[in-house]
């Protein structure tokens, strides 16, 4: 069975935020209204987290892109009262927008704060309406949404491979953020395939995962900077 995973090389990442924008375009995430953004209402499946280390004058600022960790043991799916968020067989934590009752318990239970709420009905500038991605459903107001590793792309990749009568190749399915990254800092693939690049990198001495002590077993790995 495949287990989709991601490795983000912080040495290569220049924090240009191209992944953030690519994600918004791919997944029909409306651009935030500045007033709402100031009230912490931005919806962003991939966000750039800033971490400041040390004290003045020995300050160091780190930026790292944070998508959903697609945990092996997700704290969010456990608490959902209606089963609107689940772990799929291929390791992705999904969100069923049609079932979500908007209680935001999963958002609160997630230690990475990657599940966001639709506080309003989504709205796009008129010019952008034509560029909405037909493969991704838009979310109604009042439901929680999250990064899905662009799982609509899996189905497409599978269909294409079937049509061409071949096995699905690793390059067939890549999420928008990994595809876009100009410095190629984001690797994506099957963690269960020991020869895959993500599997190899995840075993590198530089590899770490966020909040590992919580036992959530994220499927997103980072490669330490400056090692």
């Amino acid at each position, binding site marked *: 069975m495949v287990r989709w995973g991601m490795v983000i090389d912080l040495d290569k990442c220049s924090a240009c935020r191209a992944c953030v924008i690519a994600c918004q375009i791919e997944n029909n995430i409306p651009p935030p209204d500045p007033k709402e953004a100031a009230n912490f209402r931005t919806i962003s499946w991939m966000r750039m987290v800033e971490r400041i280390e040390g004290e003045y004058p020995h300050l160091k600022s780190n930026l790292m892109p944070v998508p959903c960790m697609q945990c092996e043991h997700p704290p969010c799916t456990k*608490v959902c009262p209606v089963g609107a968020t689940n772990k799929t067989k291929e390791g992705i934590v999904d969100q069923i927008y049609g079932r979500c009752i908007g209680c935001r318990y999963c958002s609160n239970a997630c*230690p990475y704060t990657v599940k966001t709420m639709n506080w309003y009905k989504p709205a796009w500038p008129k010019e952008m309406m034509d560029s909405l991605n037909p493969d991704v459903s838009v979310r109604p107001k*009042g439901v929680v949404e999250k990064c899905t590793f662009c799982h609509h792309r899996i189905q497409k990749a599978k269909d294409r491979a079937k049509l061409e009568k071949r096995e699905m190749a690793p390059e067939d399915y890549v999420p928008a953020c990994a595809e876009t990254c100009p410095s190629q800092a984001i690797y994506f693939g099957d963690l269960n395939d020991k020869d895959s690049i993500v599997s190899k990198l995840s075993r590198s001495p530089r590899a770490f995962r966020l909040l590992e002590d919580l036992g959530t077993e994220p499927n997103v790995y980072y490669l330490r900077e400056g090692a």
Partner: protein
Amino acid sequence: MEVVKPDGRLAQGERSAAAGDEILYRPIMKTGRGFYTVFALLSLVVLVAAYAYFTQFRDGLGVTGLNSPVFWGVYITNFVFFIGVSHAGTLISAILRISKAEWRRSITRSAEVITVLVLFFGLGNILIDLGRIDRVLKVIAHGRFQSPLLWDVVSITTYLTASSVYLYLPLIPDIALLRDRMKGGFRKRLYQVLALGWAGTEKQIHYLEKGIGIMAVTVLPIAVSVHTVVSYVFSMTVQPMWHSAIFGPYFVAGAIFSGIAAIIVAMAILRKVYRLEDYFREVHFNNLGILLLVMTCLWLYFTFSEYLTVFYGAKPDEIKVFMEKISGRYAPHFWFMVVTCFVIPFTILANNRTRTIKGTVIASVSVNIGMWLERFTIVVPTLMHPRLPYETGSYSATWVEWAILAGCFALFALIYMIFTKLFPIVSIWEVQEGRQKAQGEVAERLKTYLPA
């Protein structure tokens, strides 16, 4: 027989007995202008709240102050608070019934009504908090038992059922009294149906008392489970200062605490409005005041244990939340909570001279404000500091949330008022039974305690 008058009250009590507790029927038989004025004012507040909710329903939860990462705020605070207050009635009245505390007779009814009504507001606030209220039935269709929210649904609906039955059973003989009194009309028919053919026969009384006894015992574990499960909603997550094993008992103690305070306030208002000085006496306020004093101390003990553990352990994630409460943005809330939950009530209640009706009422109002703040300082500061280094959230509730909070209180008062207009707020038959039998029973009981 000449009435002995060591103090005036006893004589007054005799007068009430002689008058056949006529004053207890008066609110039902006659409705003055004051009632309609208050009714109109409260309705106005409820209407504003209804408009606030309509705004939220139309535009989305964006009209509140909620954001990410502060996904929960005033509504969830209200939910925990109201479910807490609901421990007033049923739990207290059940404990007093089981322990055969004779002074309970005139106060149980007013307490039990609080429970049943306030539970709806607890549930209601959860529903108001939902982003998709239209999908609420999915909780039944697709409910998953691994979610603590579903434990809540089950235990609260069980509690609602049990406490409604527990309110209704002791009401039956009183409904029968009203049925016999009414000349006709809609209410007569209502009482006829609700009295279930009560005639006060030996057999009926036997079964009723058995039923009340069974319900009193049943309701206790359910009540404890309810607030434990409410606390589990928080403590089952791994979030800093939520993930605490003490939360179950801490919440239950807090619930009983705010519950007793709510009874005292309700009793004081009823006493004043319906002139029930003879039924809600100083001794009731004094006894409930002592109970409240015990709970104040228990509250301090729990709070101290909880906060000392966090402080001494000093885990970085938890200490961030801790400092936010002790000296950060939520310090005013936190310290005001300590003052209103402990300093004020303890000072008033620990002193015999200040533990008067006025004193206990001031202490109770203070406790209720403090307990709301306690729930608030549990919910919000944790959410403001998620584990990942992240833009620290901020939260300030909007008019929508405050209007709905005010509306909850107003609607509660409104329904409570209507209840007092339909049913006696003091259990008439239990008071009368107390006069006729209790003295003998207590004397008998005393004999069994003492060496011959």
